[in-house]
């Protein structure tokens, strides 16, 4: 049963956000008998109510509060008020995510050491290694039911995968399969197997795909130690004279201000809202925002080097049928500077429905060059590029100078410009992707620009030294002992892999640390 805690109960751990990081941390702490309140800005919508329709689902679940953008990325021009695709609902973006679950590679934890100094990039080694995280990766893979781990079978390949695989074989790629997916290939953990519905990005109506909404959260609630308060938008974190955080102020479902006391506060609002909240919580003691003595809060915004390749064939593919992203080539994920860039990238299958294809194939494009591509929509195959991008200090989430949200708080302004390394990597990936499709007879292919960011990382980065970043190796802020960051904004660097498995692993690890520190009465 959900446990209702009082607003004045200062013994609770308050978690802000119920997505991959927050939802997992909440359950892990509750399992250890720790009292937890999760404040979630969005509503609670169970999976039966998800919608098999791209725009309707976007309207139902996406974060639509106003945001602005700046910098040289094309998203700034094409989607000036939609820098990112993030969900505002219980479960966070794990409702819309695709389920690709990869471990970060060993060398990617030490980019400064392994890549050396890259001009214009703010590279830094993580304060943890793959070995530190391995036991937690194992727990996360088990929890999420990741295919090809724990003796879980891979998903069957759909039409889009078969085209992709044929191309990969022709090019001589060795590591190509239907992915490590947090999607049940058969019944597991009380959830059914994938029915190949093809709407993974709209929320899985079968519950086959892992989401904190119907795994971590109900499991935590069942302990009686976790209360999830939906439609509770946190505006500010408050502290006492000693600098310890004491409470959070939030707007409840009726827009009324409430204050929830807390022993510990964990921020897990994803990489745009988490730094925004820390910056918006500035006080006379912390005039630059909470936990910002390094000046790094909001900086080093990363979004992966992405892009897509779509191709048209002379015969039908029906690529929208089946799992949206169950297909991967990992051969290019290595660090091989002879390709003209540091770091690596993954290629993953991707299909969009007709409405999103029209919006994203070539945003702003029109005329026959554009429409003749859509004319062959049923003969298309598609893949997504996800590679390591360079952290850069000027790529940042800032507070807007003038615009405020409906609660009077400055809105986030998201700045991003590709690093030359990002551009070189993307061009390499476009070339390889197009070659894969050419090899199986594509008559035309399309190097499609990045969409609004689905992977948002790095804006409260983890560092050994307090001067280099915002949190330590446990996600605890360097400046404030009882303030934690529990989402992807902790990432020191982005690595080539989709981030969620790592976010979940870090949350499991952080829960152990918080429990231990609470036990030792040090926080």
């Amino acid at each position, binding site marked *: 049963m959900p446990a209702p805690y009082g607003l004045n109960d200062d013994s609770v751990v308050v978690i802000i956000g119920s997505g991959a990081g927050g939802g997992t941390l909440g359950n892990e702490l509750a399992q250890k008998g720790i009292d937890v309140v999760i404040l979630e800005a969005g509503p609670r919508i169970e999976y039966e109510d998800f919608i*098999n*329709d791209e*725009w309707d689902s976007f309207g139902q679940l996406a974060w639509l509060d106003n945001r602005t953008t700046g910098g040289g990325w094309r998203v700034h021009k094409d989607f000036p008020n939609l820098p990112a695709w993030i969900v505002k609902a219980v479960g966070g973006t794990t409702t819309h995510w695709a389920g690709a679950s990869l471990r970060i590679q060993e060398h990617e934890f030490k980019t400064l050491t392994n890549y050396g100094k890259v001009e214009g990039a703010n590279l830094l080694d993580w304060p943890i290694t793959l070995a530190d995280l391995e036991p937690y990766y194992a727990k996360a893979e088990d929890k999420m039911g990741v295919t090809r781990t724990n003796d879980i079978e891979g998903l*069957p*390949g*759909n*039409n889009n995968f*078969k*085209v992709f695989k*044929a191309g990969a074989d022709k090019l001589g790629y060795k590591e190509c399969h239907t992915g490590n997916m947090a999607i049940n290939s058969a019944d597991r953990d009380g959830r059914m197997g*994938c*029915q*190949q*519905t*093809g*709407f993974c990005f709209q929320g899985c*109506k*079968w519950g086959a795909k892992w989401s904190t909404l119907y795994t971590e959260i109900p499991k935590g609630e069942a302990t009686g130690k976790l209360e999830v308060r939906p439609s509770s938008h946190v505006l500010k974190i408050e502290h006492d004279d000693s600098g310890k955080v004491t409470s959070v102020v939030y707007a409840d479902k009726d827009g009324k201000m409430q204050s929830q006391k807390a022993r510990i506060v964990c921020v897990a609002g994803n990489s745009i809202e988490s730094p925004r909240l820390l910056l918006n919580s500035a006080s006379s003691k912390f005039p630059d925002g909470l936990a910002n003595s390094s000046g790094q809060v909001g900086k080093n915004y990363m979004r992966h080097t992405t892009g897509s390749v779509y191709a048209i*064939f002379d*015969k*039908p*593919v*029906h690529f*929208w*049928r*089946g799992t949206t992203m169950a297909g991967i080539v990992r051969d290019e994920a290595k660090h091989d500077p002879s390709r003209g860039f540091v770091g690596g990238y993954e290629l993953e299958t991707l299909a969009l*429905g*007709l*409405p999103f*294809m*029209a*919006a994203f194939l070539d945003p*702003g494009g*029109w*005329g*026959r060059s*554009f*429409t003749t591509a*859509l*004319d062959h*929509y*049923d003969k298309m195959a598609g893949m997504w590029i996800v590679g390591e991008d360079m952290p850069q200090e000027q790529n940042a989430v800032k507070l807007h100078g003038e615009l405020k949200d409906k609660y009077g708080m400055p809105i986030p302004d998201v700045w991003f410009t590709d690093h030359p390394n990002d551009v070189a990597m993307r061009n390499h990936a476009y070339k390889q992707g197009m070659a894969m499709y050419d090899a*199986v007879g594509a008559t035309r292919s399309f190097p499609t620009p990045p969409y609004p960011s689905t992977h948002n990382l790095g804006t409260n980065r983890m560092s050994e030294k307090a001067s280099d970043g915002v949190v330590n190796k446990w996600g605890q802020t360097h400046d404030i002992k009882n303030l934690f960051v529990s989402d992807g904004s902790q990432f020191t660097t982005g690595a080539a892999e989709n981030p969620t498995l790592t976010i979940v692993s870090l949350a499991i690890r952080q829960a152990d640390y918080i429990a231990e520190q609470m036990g030792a009465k040090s926080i």
Partner: protein
Amino acid sequence: MVTIYQGKSGLSRRELLKRGSAAGALLIISGSAVLSAGEAWGLESTALKPETLATLIQMARDVYPHDQVPDKFYAIAIKSHDEQAGKDAAHKDLIEKGIADLDQKSGAGGYTGLGWEDERVAILRQIEDTPFFQAIRGGLVVGLYNQKEVWPIFGYEGESYSKGGYIARGFDDIEWL
């Protein structure tokens, strides 16, 4: 909501032919309505001039030309501008002036008087950075491609949950590889 109506236009085939057309060979203006000669539907204008709607339909097709998609769906896609113009004088102004400008740039016969798509597209290229063009194009991306009736024309199958997904309906049925 959309006042596209199907069925008899009230004009006989002979009458239609006699009247000629305001927008290419396909669309007829009658009172406040735009009528389709070949397909049985009409679009009632409420705020914009019917001639403006007819030109917008042609412009929509020139922006996103799909020869297999009937005019009706372009008409549905631009209909929202008429609705918005009814509520917002600035929007009405944007559209009416935008179309007047298009006609002016197109010479004596106006935009729809230009016979070849290439000729019309050349005019559109001149204005593609204007707020008017962007409003029309931006609205069409959703207005045209998010019509469920349009999807089957492209082969897209839409919602699949109620049919049990594709697990038994061809998710891996590709044969030509």
